[in-house]
């Protein structure tokens, strides 16, 4: 088992996984209440990945993620208020309400979405890495994507270019075993995903994505390489407990499979570990949950009090230099 990170970090990792969990469980309820609309993709069960990686980043590092990105945005530093307001479609949202759940953006924290074309943000991430290299800076770029993206041409084009040009970008494959209802075995000729990336000459390995300590450790090592000027690929094995989106009747898997994965729940197992190590007690853990609930209730109140962008402004944000 991976060694525990220093006690303060360990406690923050637990606290942040809890924040994501609470936020997303509230999102599911808010969806039922029709406060959130459109597609909503929850990462419940996958919190260790965003948490472990994000704790290794500096504020000036850039992050790109998929439409399953609420936790990534939160831990990159976008406020829960701005995220919630975005999901409510309010002008106070982090994307001004124009994006919604799938398109959280925040230039200030260098959070580049919220991208919903599977595989489409991989070349963009490499381009941000290339810009660092060409301008002699050393900020890291991190790109999260699902294993479904690895069957797309854009994955392969990006791996080749990143390796060929020594682009300092970290590629994190969140392998939750299903692309909507398509299982890994039915979509990939090689199911050992790090082997695919390694084929391009990129340092690549597989990590238990349910173990936040392991993710934190791997991300640290990976980012050391990235900051020295090279790409790294890590596959993080995980599982989503919820449906793909709120429209998914989940015909493709058995309930027992979900229950089996819940035994390794990242929050439950890490809580147990920290308790056994004497770093937290029940009160401290309950306090983390309570604080997260409070943060999210405040965020929801903020979003509820948000304003809708006037319809007269519909044509904004199409061009930075407005058309004549």
């Amino acid at each position, binding site marked *: 088992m991976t060694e525990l990170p220093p006690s303060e970090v360990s406690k923050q990792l637990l606290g942040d996984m809890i924040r994501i969990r609470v936020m997303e469980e509230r999102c599911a309820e808010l969806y039922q209440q029709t406060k959130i609309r459109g597609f909503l993709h929850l990462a419940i069960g996958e919190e260790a990945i965003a948490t472990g990686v994000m704790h290794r980043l500096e504020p000036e590092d*850039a992050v790109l993620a998929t439409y399953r990105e609420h936790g990534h945005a939160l831990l990159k530093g976008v406020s829960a208020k701005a995220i919630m307001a975005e999901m409510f479609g309010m002008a106070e*949202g*982090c*994307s*001004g*309400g*124009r*994006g919604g759940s799938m*398109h959280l*953006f*925040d*230039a200030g924290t260098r959070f*580049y*979405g*919220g*991208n919903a*074309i599977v595989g*489409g*943000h*991989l*070349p*963009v*991430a*490499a*381009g*941000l*890495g*290339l*810009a*660092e290299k*060409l*301008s002699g800076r050393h900020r890291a770029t991190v790109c999260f994507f699902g294993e479904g993206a690895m069957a797309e*041409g*854009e994955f392969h*084009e*990006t791996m*080749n*270019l990143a390796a*060929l*040009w020594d682009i300092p970008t970290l590629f994190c494959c969140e392998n939750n075993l299903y692309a909507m209802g398509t299982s890994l075995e039915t979509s990939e000729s090689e199911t050992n995903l790090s082997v695919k990336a390694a084929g391009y000459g990129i340092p690549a390995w597989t990590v238990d994505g349910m173990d936040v300590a392991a993710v934190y450790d791997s991300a640290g090592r990976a980012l050391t390489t990235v900051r020295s000027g090279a790409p790294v690929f890590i596959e993080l094995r995980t599982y989503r407990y919820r449906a793909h989106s709120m429209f998914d009747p989940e015909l493709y898997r058995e309930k027992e499979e979900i229950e089996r994965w819940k035994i390794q729940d990242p929050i439950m197992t890490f809580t147990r570990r920290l308790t056994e190590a004497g770093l937290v007690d029940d009160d401290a853990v309950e306090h983390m949950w309570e604080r997260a609930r409070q943060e999210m209730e405040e965020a929801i109140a903020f979003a509820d009090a948000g304003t809708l962008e006037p319809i007269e402004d519909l044509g*904004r*944000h*199409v*061009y*930075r*230099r407005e*058309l*004549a």
Partner: protein
Amino acid sequence: MTTITYRDALHDAHREALRTDERVFIMGEDVADYGGTYAVTKGLFEEFGRHRVRNTPLSESGFVGLGIGAALGGMRPIVEVMTVNFSLLAMDQIVNTAATFLHMSGGQLNVPVVIRMATGAGRQLAAQHSHSLEAWYAHVPGLRVVAPGTINDARWMLAAALEDPDPVIMFEHATLYGTKGELDDAGPVDLDTAKVMRPGTDLTIIGWSGTLAKALDAAAQLDDRGVSAEVIDLRSLRPIDDATIIESVARTNRAIVVDEGWRSVGLSAELAARITEQCFYHLDAPVGRVCAEEVPIPYPSHLEQAALPQVDQVVDAALAVTGS
């Protein structure tokens, strides 16, 4: 005034861009050692180095996406795609990423990338190398689409495109590269306006890129037959400069559009609709259109030429609308 080819005018524009702005770099297939498919970038890698004139593998989606990412990262990339036919492999990046980021991010993230590509038929390259798909891009809010049709625009449009904060798609008709003409040293041009190339009183002929010379030839022939044609170079395919067109047609009361794209659902249809909407009561005849025939461009010269708009067709169309 100097006489120069369209190709050299573009070359000089690229050289100047690399010299004056260190954020600028060029990226594309065979832009370095080969000298560029149409020799536009010839010699530039020797002068500026391989890090600024970057040969890419055959990965249209990958390197166009890298260009977009690098633009987000503060660079000013010029991405060369060999031809519009191959750009379809990068259409995801152009349409789903470059054109949407500013909007999805609520105005936070603009994408100052310039994407150049050759277009058009006339060299017996058959159906996968000859199409004019400019309209596909001109359809998309968030993109600027320009088509330098003159030596002057070949020399000066690039600087304006690089200045622009939004993605600019630049189309170069492949038969223009070898054409020669006078270059005036007027310096930077705008990206938004159409230009009256030849004043006239009896009808307005609108062409651009590969059809501009045909429109001008037709106007010269019409002159001999006592018909005074005004010729407009559209220049900007998005936005379309309604003001210049409508001002002209309101005077001449007749209009013809000459488009190397197909007639159905294309730019000629768009222009005819705008003219009809905006100066219906000035029109003395329906708007005429001379377009490519609705076939994939064939290989044999006689069939290829039969598929493309020709000068005599423009003359006939002009005589028809003027009732001469």
